[in-house]
């Protein structure tokens, strides 16, 4: 089954999503520095293309799981910016009523089934949701995002084995940014490519330039179509670059900053804009319009979040158990 390649309208939608993520993350950074957003916050500046390319091809009923660097995935899957931002600020109108926060975003309505602060922890959970689809007999496809650091965790291997044994409709999307916290991948494993790590299981897999949105879109689209038809699992490794530190506030002394021109050459937004311009999909001015629309939406989200009340104290007890 061959999926249609990215067209102009889709490309502009992806650009809009990427800008929403980029500017959202930048706003989060400012809020963290201003001590308005607290806690352990990991932003995804530089990695937006993967979230956009993957999630924009999914339906609301396709379950998506993520890890600790999850804002972009939630947003790309459809989580509203305002309620997402309110969640980071611990507000009652946040996606999770302020109880979860940055590493625990969930938006069931849009099929964003959850982030986690446990590295790799959601990989088997996503498989369980693929198993549910198989048992129910529906055609949803589960997707889980995780970093290269998760690949050294035992539960990752256990899950890949199970997924291939049971042939479930799961797409594993690894965002390989070459670092886990402050430590480069070479200090964690001899196996550079995640596609090589899983090779023995014989699942279809591919390594793409995750900052090349067109390539990521195409590769994921092919897997998605097959999974939709009952195939799977798949692993898509997206090579990418974490522009910021590991967390908001990380001085990042352990690696050299990228020169501005180097980053221009990597930036997935810049690259997709260039591609779109070359294809004649849009004029320069349109890009600015997309960006500024996203900027407005982020500004509104910040205003919404700030205006949202904190949750009531008794919420705590209410939500420990679901009512039978």
């Amino acid at each position: 089954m061959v999926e249609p390649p990215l067209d102009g309208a889709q490309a502009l939608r992806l650009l809009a999503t990427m800008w929403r993520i980029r500017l959202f993350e930048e706003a989060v950074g400012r809020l963290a520095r201003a001590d308005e957003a607290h806690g352990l916050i990991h932003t995804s500046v530089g990695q937006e293309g993967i979230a956009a390319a993957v999630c924009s091809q999914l339906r609301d009923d396709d379950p998506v799981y993520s890890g600790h660097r999850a804002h972009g995935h939630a947003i790309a899957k459809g989580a509203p910016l305002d309620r997402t931002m309110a969640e980071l600020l611990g507000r009652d109108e946040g996606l999770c009523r302020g109880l979860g926060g940055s590493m625990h975003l969930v938006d069931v309505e849009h099929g964003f089934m959850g982030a986690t602060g446990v590295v790799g922890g959601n990989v088997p959970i996503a498989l369980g949701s693929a198993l549910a689809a198989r048992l129910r007999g529906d055609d949803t496809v589960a997707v889980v995002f995780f970093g290269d650091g998760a690949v050294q965790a035992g539960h990752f291997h256990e899950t890949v084995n199970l997924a291939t044994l049971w042939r479930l409709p799961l797409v594993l999307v690894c965002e390989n940014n070459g670092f886990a916290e402050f430590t480069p991948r070479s200090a964690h494993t001899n196996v550079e490519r995640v596609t090589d790590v899983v090779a023995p299981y014989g699942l279809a897999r591919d390594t793409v330039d995750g900052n090349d949105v067109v390539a990521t879109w195409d590769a994921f689209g092919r897997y998605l179509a097959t999974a939709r038809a009952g195939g799977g699992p798949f692993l898509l490794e997206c090579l990418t670059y974490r522009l910021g530190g590991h967390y908001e506030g990380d001085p990042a002394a352990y690696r050299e900053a990228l020169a501005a021109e180097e980053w221009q050459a990597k930036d997935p937004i810049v690259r997709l804009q260039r591609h779109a311009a070359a294809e004649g999909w849009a004029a320069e001015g349109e890009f600015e319009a997309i960006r500024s629309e996203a900027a407005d939406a982020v500004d509104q989200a910040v205003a919404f979040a700030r205006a949202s009340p904190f949750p009531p104290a008794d919420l705590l007890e209410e939500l420990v158990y679901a009512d039978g």
Partner: protein
Amino acid sequence: MAETTYVKAITGALAEAMRADDRVFVLGEDVAEGGPYTATAGLAEEFGTARVIDTPISEAAITGVAIGAAQSGMRPVLEIMFVDFVTLALDQLVNAAAKAHFMSGGQLTVPMVVRTQGGAGQRGAAQHSQSLESWLTHVPGLKVVMPSRAVDAAGLLAASIRDPNPVVLIENKTLYFRREEVPDELPAVELGVSATLREGRDVTIVALSRLVHDALAAAERLAAEDGIEAEVIDPRTLVPLDLAAIVKSVQRTSRLVVAHEAVAHGGFGAEIAAQVQSAAFDFLDAPVVRIGAPFAPVPLSAPLEDAYLPGADEVVAAVRGLVMPP
């Protein structure tokens, strides 16, 4: 009345739940072959291996799989073959299953059951004999169930499967093949409701799992030999705990013994003791006495294991010490 066993009650409850609800399925190591204690025997034959799923030795991932399936609307019943290996599943249980409903602001629910079994007494040695329930009672979001009798086991399991929360149901390996007369129709049981299995005015004995039978045997001996009438309460579920029933009993008896097989130090008996001394301080004529294993791993050697394990003798001695101080 009919004769059955604890393990048959469990198998029967599983089969009934699977018949009644398509969303219920079973997964775990060797479950399609019935498992080491036959708890899932016959299920694969009746329901097929799509719903009775053998898994590799991957405790962490299969727990995650159960969580994900539960979050997506299914009702998984996961077997962890020995509670000792819950250690491998604890990240998933504690960091994901227990917290998902809360952290998502109520959006996610995790209606799953973890069936596992614990306890010593079969010379299984230190890694196949533990009683680890107290860890789980310290985790908000989990429910913890410990059936002691066939007559309850089915109802407790059925209630656990119906519950929209993650429930860990810990069976006891020495009880599986214990024969028991039960009514033809096993009764429904609610989580959080204790059973008073013997009434008595002199002392309250709260016992968990296997120790329930020892407590009942001890009570008979105390009545016959000392004229002491012990009330025996089986909480059946640790979380939620039927504290009210325990306190009410202690208000009458003024004395409490809490008995379980787990290591006493840090065991659930400490929690019960702490709660009761707080709730019934003015009623207590003597300190709450805890019975549990000594602070040591379970030894293999038969006489040492026998000495290690609390049983009816320890309950009798504790009650005598309380009721008839020297």
